[in-house]
């Protein structure tokens, strides 16, 4: 639906409303914004919002025509963040049936970088070429990296007999533009990489049909969703300077998702229950399939030439099925005791094509069994999993306005991963809440989670000179054994008539007991204080202060070779793939402690200076500081195996935003808003500081890397002046 259609519709409704003397209210607004900014790349300032100078607009319409009510909202017409939404509702005279509709459009531009550099011609298209080496960035082309996303959606809902309803939702999300997509040039990190500006031209169309029956005692729905994702550029080809040929990067495959869902809730009636003990039973089940079809590349560029990849089938047919079901039985055992029993199960089956790539040269083959099929072939992985969990919760409304909640849940998971195939979870939680004091509410929650997982790689590798032996010690924190402790404390205080305060403390610790290499422990702590004070007729203030600490600890093994060194006087390779062995200057364990600290504070003020004038202000400050401390294993002599340098600016940033605006109500029809805003965003990051377009080749066989500058200069300062005149009718 175009803007013209909506304006036409609005005029139609306005005319009809006038003819029937119906209460139709609304407003139109026109305004402007002026921007002065200072930055090397202002994309971060514009990341999700259109702060550019220019006109602003809004339109609102709310009213009714007999039993028909409607609401129209629109803003920023013609800008990158334009939004329009129309909702309506028609009701039968006896209120037994209702028809609702909705039409909307929402636009968003996601700006990633302005004036990015690239040595390629055709940047952002499916075919990009360049001549390498290209060592003078001044000769490169410039390109803005951003995507335009527009969502058009609509819904129809028809309720009849007050119990049955049907609802149809449809939407289309169109995304156009480009994005950063880098690529390795060779087969080793020393061969460098290139930043490519990849095309984005996709469309996702969703249709969801839902049928339902709702009454006080029973609610049930059946829904069907189909979601089709189409990618107009399934392949991007580009010049590879290292292999000296045309390379290809497959893009996201077009796919179709279909899902059937059933939901049902049987619950107590106001005066009697269909189930004993005033129970309610909730059931849900869904089955979804996702399909894709991709013509596989039959050749690939590698060292010195293009090689056949010999896929066992020309087309990969992806087919994944996700089934899930859940059941919740909530029961009021007594007036003060509620229980809840839950059961959930979820499984993924993967019947995608099994693809074997054979006779691959070195560099295209997948390595060594059992990690892969063989050194000259690759067999794809079809990931599946099963999850099952059951739990019980008991809530006791204890005397003295106490409430205690106990929970226990067990879970079981199976996966066809090589690192962990089975795990068992056991979760225990206790929660206490007290509202004994009229103006104080206190809550405390403690939870433990114990997960135990198997380690099928524990027998890998013939001995410690075999690279596979190292995998006996590598764990992945998402599935490995875990001991988790979590504490959460909160208090809310209404200290006086117009004074509310709150405090919240959260502590969470994960330990991975089986981890030798990988993440071994992580912690998260948060403290938050809030304060709200003021009389709505005079001055109101709202403030918060927050501290957050995150710490991730990990251990790794530095072995910069695929075979173990021979250390004299021994004539055989050392057992270097065993992390329990003593360190050498080339093979050693090292540990990292990665810390993130975030501090934030904010203040909002609404101050009615006069009957018709309100001054509003907001200040927001946030500082993020990251650091990594590293330690190398000690040599038998006691000295450190390596002189490792930690990082003190690891994603550091500081953001200050200040907004001051006034709302003046001149008359019942006219009102004016105007104000100023200031923002300063600073980044300091060891990964990006002093970024250059080239990373020069170092060492034999190495190759230059080519960077676009995307993400290199996110800092900005912005000053905005804005105003809006609003006429209500």
């Amino acid at each position: 639906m175009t803007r013209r259609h909506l304006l036409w519709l609005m005029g139609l409704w306005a005319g009809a409303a006038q003819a029937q003397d119906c209460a139709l209210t609304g407003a139109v607004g026109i305004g402007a914004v002026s921007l002065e900014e200072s930055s090397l790349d202002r994309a971060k300032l514009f990341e999700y919002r259109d702060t550019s100078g220019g006109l602003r607009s809004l339109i609102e319409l709310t009213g009714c025509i007999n039993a028909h009510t409607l609401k129209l909202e629109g803003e920023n017409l013609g800008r990158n963040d334009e939004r329009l939404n129309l909702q309506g509702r028609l009701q039968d005279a006896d209120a037994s049936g209702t028809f609702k509709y909705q039409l909307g459009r929402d636009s968003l531009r996601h700006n990633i970088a302005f004036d990015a550099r690239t040595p390629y011609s055709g940047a952002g298209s499916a075919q990009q070429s360049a001549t390498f080496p290209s060592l003078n960035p001044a000769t490169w082309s410039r390109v803005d990296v951003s995507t335009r996303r527009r969502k058009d959606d609509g819904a129809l809902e028809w309720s009849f007999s007050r119990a049955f309803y049907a609802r149809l939702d449809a939407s289309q999300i169109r995304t156009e533009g480009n994005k950063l997509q880098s690529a390795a040039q060779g087969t080793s990190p020393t061969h460098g990489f290139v930043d490519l500006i990849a095309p984005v031209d996709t469309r996702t169309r969703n249709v969801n049909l839902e049928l339902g029956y709702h009454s006080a005692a029973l609610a049930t729905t059946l829904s069907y969703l189909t979601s089709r994702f189409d990618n107009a550029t399934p392949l991007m080809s580009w010049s590879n300077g290292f292999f000296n040929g045309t390379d290809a990067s497959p893009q996201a495959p077009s796919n179709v998702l279909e899902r059937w869902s059933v939901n049902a809730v049987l619950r107590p009636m106001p005066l009697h229950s269909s189930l004993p003990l005033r129970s309610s039973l909730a059931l849900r089940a869904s089955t979804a399939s996702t399909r894709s079809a991709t013509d596989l590349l039959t050749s690939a560029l590698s060292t010195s030439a293009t090689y056949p990849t010999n896929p066992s089938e020309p087309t990969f047919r992806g087919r994944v099925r996700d089934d899930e079901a859940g059941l919740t039985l909530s029961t009021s055992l007594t007036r003060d005791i509620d229980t809840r029993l839950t059961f959930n199960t979820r499984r993924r089956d993967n019947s995608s094509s099994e693809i074997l790539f054979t006779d691959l040269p070195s560099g295209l083959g997948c390595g060594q069994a059992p990690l892969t099929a063989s050194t000259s072939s690759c067999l794809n992985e079809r990931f599946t999993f099963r999850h099952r969990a059951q739990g019980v919760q008991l809530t006791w409304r204890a005397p003295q306005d106490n409430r205690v909640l106990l929970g226990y849940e067990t879970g079981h998971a199976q996966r066809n991963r090589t690192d962990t195939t089975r795990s068992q979870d056991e979760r225990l939680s206790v929660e206490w809440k007290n509202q004994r004091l009229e103006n104080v509410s206190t809550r405390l929650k403690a939870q433990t989670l114990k997960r135990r997982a198997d380690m099928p790689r524990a027998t890998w590798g013939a001995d410690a000179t075999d690279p596979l032996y190292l995998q006996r010690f590598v764990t992945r924190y998402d599935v490995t054994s875990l001991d988790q402790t979590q504490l959460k404390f909160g208090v809310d205080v209404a200290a006086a008539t117009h004074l509310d305060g709150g405090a919240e403390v959260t502590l969470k610790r994960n330990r991975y007991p089986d981890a030798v290499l990988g993440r071994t422990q992580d912690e998260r702590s948060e403290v938050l204080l809030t304060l709200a004070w003021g009389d709505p007729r005079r001055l109101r203030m709202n403030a918060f202060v927050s501290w957050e600490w995150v710490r991730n600890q990990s251990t790794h093994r530095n072995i910069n070779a695929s075979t173990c060194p021979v250390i004299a006087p021994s004539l055989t390779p050392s057992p270097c793939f065993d992390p329990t062995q003593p360190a050498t200057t080339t093979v050693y364990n090292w540990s990292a402690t990665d810390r993130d600290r975030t501090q934030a504070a904010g203040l909002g003020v609404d101050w009615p200076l006069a009957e018709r004038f309100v001054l509003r202000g907001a200040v927001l400050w946030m500082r993020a500081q990251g650091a990594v401390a590293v330690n190398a294993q000690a040599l038998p002599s006691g000295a450190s195996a390596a002189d490792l340098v930690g990082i003190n600016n690891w994603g550091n940033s500081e953001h200050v935003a200040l907004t001051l605006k006034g709302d003046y109500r001149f008359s019942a029809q006219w009102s004016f808003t105007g104000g100023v805003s200031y923002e300063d965003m600073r980044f300091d990051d060891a990964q990006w500081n002093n970024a250059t377009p080239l990373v020069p080749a170092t060492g034999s066989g190495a190759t230059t890397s080519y960077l676009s500058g995307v993400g290199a200069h996110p800092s900005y300062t912005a000053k905005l002046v804005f105003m809006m005149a609003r006429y209500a009718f």
Partner: protein
Amino acid sequence: MKSFPCLAWMGVLCAWAVHAQPLPCATCHPREAQSLHAGPHAPHQDHCGACHGQTQAHAQAMGREPVQQRFGKGEPTAQRDAACLSCHQDARTLMHWDAGAHKKAEVACVSCHSVHGGVQAKAPDPSISTWINTTRRSQVEACVGCHASVRVQLGKPSHHPLMEGKLACTDCHQPHGSPAASDLKDSTPTALCLSCHAEKRGPWVWPHPPVEENCLTCHRPHGANHSKLLSEKVPNLCQDCHDNVRHPGSYYGANQGFAPGSQSTRFVARACVNCHQAIHGSNAPGARGKFFTR
């Protein structure tokens, strides 16, 4: 005594008049009465008692007696909700109310809905946000009034566009209850993420298992200090799972940045992702796909 039936009748008439006519309520509460005109409760604007119960005593005592049904903080949640649920209990959006976190936490309907403030969620406190190009009242502001820690997350350098008004909390969460954890609108976080990020659905020749199972293994949906909503910077995040011969287990540090002489392609810019960019899955042949470099 002859006049008793007459007086009684007049009393009944007065009682009926007080009960049925809006005049006494609107006389003292004009803003509250007016506020219902344009909202979904407009058909009930003349029947304050539909929500507030018996109002005669309150009106007759000129406000010195409370109305039967009150909605202040001190009233029990179940009692406050009962008035709303008497009409809305069979609403389809409340289907999973009993299973939801808000019911469990005894959050009342009026904690979020301001019946006399229109259909929008109320924003009780002054806004604390950067300037955004909208005049609409932000749903986020209503939610972070209680979920204050989420406000901090949403303000981090990498975030979904909630504070910008282009997404709402209810795009992901169902505040009226859901059978899923965290009252998500979809059964799992991954299913929810893929409803918007459809390009990451695959199915892939080479899937990355943690991606398939749970997006939250690597991403913080409410906001992060590091780009792409990552919970930890790369290469640290990747190295938390991957250790092998050569570069996955190597140390990378501050002396390998862009400063001349020591740059490492595994440290600068996006580190591992400079080469392994197809980290959500790949359809490229052989090692190019298996190791997510194409």
